[in-house]
Each structure stands twice: as structure tokens, then as C-alpha cells.
């Protein structure tokens, strides 16, 4: 909770520091602020406080997801210094909107009232509509912004209609109130309640790009400024899945038979469509977009299992996925900074000769996304699948493993381009901030793979 208050103050401060022309001080201030927020947030560990009439509930899951979101945001901010160097006109706007997005994400992982879920999702989405279009002169950026807005607001409509039907049936917005209502009326739940669950599912599925509500993802990821894509691909996924799981685990875990079959179908469709389409992509950003869709499919398995350990599975998986995605985008940004305005996978050709360090970190990231052992991605996938098997969905896990095998193909395409293809010979210099980010993410990926107990035992 204190995290939200401090971040709001930080966001306002960012706006005014920028307006009064201390732009040099912006980035250090934000980074220090975010680090301080992580510290303060960690102090709420094990306190389990209900804030503001039970609007927000900071249990250990909320605290750990908040910390994950903040850590990923720090990495994004570290990259942003160079990214916005050429264009500082709207620096403070971009920064403060990113901070407001983080606030929305934190609301989404800590809500215990559907009103807060709605406000969190909208704070996150509206900020992201602006960020997606923040490259004002770029046609693709404008278009991405428009598509994201149209799809996002349409999804909001569905989510809201779902909320209103749940309210009509149960008369409350509190997650625990709805849970009690479900348990009391287990046998005779009205139809509008089921329709409400379905509509909320559609609304949330839009936000986390589950097939068949995924079609905006590739265009938006491709068109948005690359740094914003990195932010979108990570923070929105973390917050979206945490919110999805929190809602379904708290409220509907006693009536799983009514929606789990639908989720199973969606998960299978998502995995197959994401992976198979990603194979055919030549644009790196589009490939990552479809890979993010397929990862959403894997993570849906945790929601299908719907157990307490699903939280750990989602936490581990989003952590591994975010760290690897940030690495991939950082390398892409670095190459593009050397005047190659092209997102094609061919830009990685000969990367091993141009900069062995970047090629190495990119390899770790791709191995982690593909789920190859000793990286974080492997352990996260292993934990997720084991969790799903223990809930009795072995057939889904078989399909998921098959899909991971497809995934290996296109992730290795990038590694092969970096190591075995001939490209430009010109050496790439690397900015210190990017080097720092790449070192942090590489270490984090390996650490998650070798010592996953750090996270699983803490819970």
C-alpha cells in the first residue's frame, strides 16, 4: 500500500521536475525512488494488512508480485536513459506515465475488491495507450496506439459487464463476499453469475492476449517504441496473470467444473497458435509477440490447476520470462542504436563477432525462453508443468511439452543467426547502462535456474 502512495508522489514529482527543467536529475531520482519503494514494500512481508475498507489486501503474493514488477521496471528505466537521449522533449511525460502504469499494475496484483481491479486495469491500460503512441511522428506507433486502444476499451466493456452480472447475482464487489456467496449457493447459482464469470474471463483474456483474443498483440508490439514494447511485454503479463489468478483462486475455486474446460481449450489454442505463427515470423519484435502469446498459453495452465502453488508457478514463470524478454529487447535496442533501423532477425547476423558479450547474454535469454536446463525458464516451466500434472491435467502438459519443442526451433533461429551467420564486421560498442542490465538479467536467469529454491522456499 505504501508502495502505491510513494509511487504516486514520485510520478507527480517526475512531472514537475521535468517541467522546471531539471531533466538530468530525473532518471537518478526515479531509480532511487523505485529502489526505496522495493525496500518499503518488502517490509510489508507477512503483515497481511487489509487497507481502506478491504479495498486492497497486501498478502505475501501481492508483495512479491509488486517487487517483481518494480524490479522489472527498474531494468526498463536503466535502458531508458540512452533510449530517450535523442528526444528529451517529452521525457518527463514518458517517465511519469510509466510510473503511473506501474501503479496500475500494483493495484492489479493487490486488489481485493472488483472496483480496484477495474481501476487498476484502466490505469495500466490508459497509460499504455499513450505510451504505445509516444513516438508521435511514427506512423506505426500511432497505429499501434489506436489498435491497442480499440481492443483494450472493447475488452474493458466485457470486463465491466462481467463485473455487473457478478454484482447482480451476489450483491458485493469484495472477493471474499463473492467467495462466501458461491459457497452458500453452490447448488443454485443463477445463470447470470456464470455469464458474469465468462465475460470477466473474456475481458481479462484480452489483456493477457489469450487466443482468440490475441490479434492486437503482434501489431501493437511491433508498432510501439521498442522500449515500451519491452515494458508492455513484461509488466502487463505479470500484472494480468496475477490478477486473473487472484480472482479465480479466491472466488471461483469451488466451482471449477464450470469454466476450467473452456480455459483448457483456450490454453491449447493459445499454445499452438502462438508457437506455430512465431515460427514464420522474420521480424524479431513480432516473433517475441507471438512467443509471448505462447507463454501466456503455458501460464494459463497454472490457472487451470488453480491451487495455492499456482501462485509460485506464475511468479517463477513471469520472473523468468520477464528477465529473458528484457534481455532480448536490450540487445535489440543496442543493435538498433548502431543505426540499423530494422527489427528483422537478420540484424543479429554475426553478433558473436561484433560483440561476444551480447551474443552470450542473448543466448542465455533465448535458452531461458525455450526452457533449456540450467536457465530460469527451464525450472519455471518444470514447476508449472509439475503443478499442472499434480492437479490431474496430464494431457495438457503433454501438449505443452510438445509446444515447447516447437518453441526451441524459433528461439534457436536467433542463436544461429548470432553465431553462425555472416553479418557486418563492425564492432559494436555497448553503453554502460545496457551492460549493467545485461549482466543483471544474465545472472538472474542463471540464478533462477540453479537456485530456484530461493523463491520457492521463501513462500
Amino acid at each position, binding site marked *: 500500500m505504501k508502495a502505491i502512495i510513494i509511487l504516486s508522489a514520485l510520478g507527480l514529482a517526475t512531472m514537475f521536475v521535468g517541467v522546471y527543467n531539471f531533466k538530468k536529475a530525473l532518471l537518478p531520482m526515479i531509480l532511487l525512488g523505485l529502489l526505496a519503494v522495493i525496500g518499503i514494500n518488502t517490509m510489508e512481508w507477512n503483515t497481511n494488512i487489509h487497507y481502506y475498507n478491504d479495498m486492497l489486501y497486501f498478502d505475501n503474493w501481492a508483495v512479491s508480485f509488486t517487487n517483481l514488477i518494480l524490479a522489472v521496471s527498474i531494468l526498463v528505466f536503466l535502458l531508458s536513459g540512452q533510449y530517450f537521449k535523442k528526444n528529451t522533449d517529452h521525457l518527463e511525460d514518458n517517465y511519469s506515465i510509466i510510473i503511473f502504469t506501474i501503479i496500475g499494475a500494483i493495484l492489479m496484483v493487490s486488489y481485493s475488491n472488483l*472496483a480496484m481491479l*477495474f*481501476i487498476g486495469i*484502466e490505469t495500466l491500460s*490508459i497509460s499504455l*495507450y*499513450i505510451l504505445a*503512441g509516444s513516438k*508521435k*511522428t511514427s*506512423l*506505426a506507433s*500511432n*497505429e*499501434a*496506439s*489506436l*489498435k491497442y*486502444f*480499440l481492443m483494450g*476499451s*472493447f475488452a*474493458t*466493456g466485457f470486463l*465491466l*459487464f462481467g*463485473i*455487473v*452480472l457478478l*454484482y*447482480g447475482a451476489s*450483491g*458485493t*464487489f469484495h472477493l471474499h463476499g463473492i467467495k462466501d456467496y458461491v459457497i452458500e449457493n453452490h447448488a443454485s447459482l443463477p445463470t447470470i453469475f456464470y455469464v458474469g464469470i465468462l465475460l470477466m474471463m473474456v475481458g481479462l483474456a484480452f489483456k493477457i492476449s489469450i487466443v482468440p483474443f490475441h490479434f492486437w498483440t*503482434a*501489431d501493437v508490439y*511491433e*508498432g510501439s517504441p521498442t522500449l515500451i514494447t519491452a515494458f508492455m511485454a513484461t509488466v502487463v503479463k505479470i500484472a494480468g496473470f496475477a490478477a486473473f489468478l487472484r480472482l479465480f483462486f479466491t472466488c471461483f475455486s469451488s466451482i471449477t467444473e464450470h469454466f476450467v474446460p473452456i480455459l483448457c481449450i483456450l490454453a491449447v489454442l493459445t499454445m499452438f497458435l502462438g508457437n506455430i505463427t512465431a515460427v514464420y515470423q522474420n521480424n524479431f519484435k513480432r516473433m517475441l509477440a507471438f512467443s509471448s502469446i505462447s507463454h501466456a498459453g503455458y501460464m494459463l495452465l497454472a490457472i487451470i490447476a488453480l491451487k495455492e502453488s499456482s501462485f509460485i508457478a506464475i511468479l517463477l514463470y513471469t520472473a523468468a520470462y520477464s528477465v529473458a524478454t528484457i534481455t532480448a529487447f536490450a540487445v535489440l535496442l543496442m543493435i538498433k542504436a548502431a543505426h540499423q533501423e530494422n527489427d528483422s532477425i537478420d540484424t543479429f547476423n554475426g553478433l558473436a563477432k561484433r560483440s561476444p558479450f551480447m551474443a552470450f547474454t542473448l543466448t542465455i535469454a533465448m535458452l531461458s525462453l525455450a526452457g533449456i536446463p540450467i536457465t530460469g525458464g527451464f525450472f519455471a516451466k518444470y514447476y508449472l508443468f509439475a503443478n499442472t500434472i499434480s492437479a490431474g491435467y496430464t494431457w495438457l502438459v503433454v501438449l505443452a511439452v510438445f509446444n515447447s519443442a516447437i518453441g526451441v526451433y524459433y528461439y534457436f533461429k536467433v542463436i544461429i543467426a548470432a553465431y553462425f551467420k555472416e553479418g557486418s564486421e563492425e564492432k559494436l560498442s555497448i553503453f554502460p547502462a545496457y551492460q549493467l542490465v545485461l549482466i543483471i538479467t544474465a545472472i538472474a536467469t542463471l540464478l533462477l535456474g540453479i537456485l530456484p529454491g530461493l523463491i520457492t522456499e521463501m513462500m
Partner: protein
Amino acid sequence: MTEIPLQHILFLSTALFFIGVYGFFTRKNMITMLMSVELILNSVNINFIAFNKYLFADKLDGIFFTIFIIVIAAAEAAVAIAIIINLYRSHKSIDVDETNEMKY
């Protein structure tokens, strides 16, 4: 005779919701699509008020939710208009079919 039954109001709001959905799918003009989205949000508002008044009149939860929806719809509309103006400057058109820079 009695007061207007809840079902009638729900019928109205559901009809509005689907008119919005229909408009969203069939119209090509961005402003009209924005209006369709607003229709969807307002149908939800009607639902909230109706449920609150007819079923749970002892608390005002539903009415307060509509206040949040109204405010957020305004914020959304503001951002949408900004996006559309920006797009109009580059495309000289507000037809969604013109936005085909990126294709599958």
C-alpha cells in the same frame, strides 16, 4: 399495476450493450467506434444502477461504481481523441481501414 420491473431495464441495457458491440464491429469511422465503446460502458452503468436500486437498495456500492466508470470513460475518451487527432495528421483520414501499416 406495479413499477417498471427489473427485467425491462436489464433488457434495455443488454440491448444497448449489443448495439455497442454491433457498432464496434461494423463501423469503420474511429469516432463512431469510440461512440460504440461508450454505449457499452453506459449499458453497464444502467445495469449497475438498476441492480443497486432493485436488489441491494440498502447499500450504494453499485452507484459508486458507476461514478468510477464515468470518470474513467472520460479519461479514455480524452486519450482516444488525442490518438485519433494524431493519426489524422499522418493519415489524413479517420477510417480504420487506412491503418494498415502493419499486416499479418
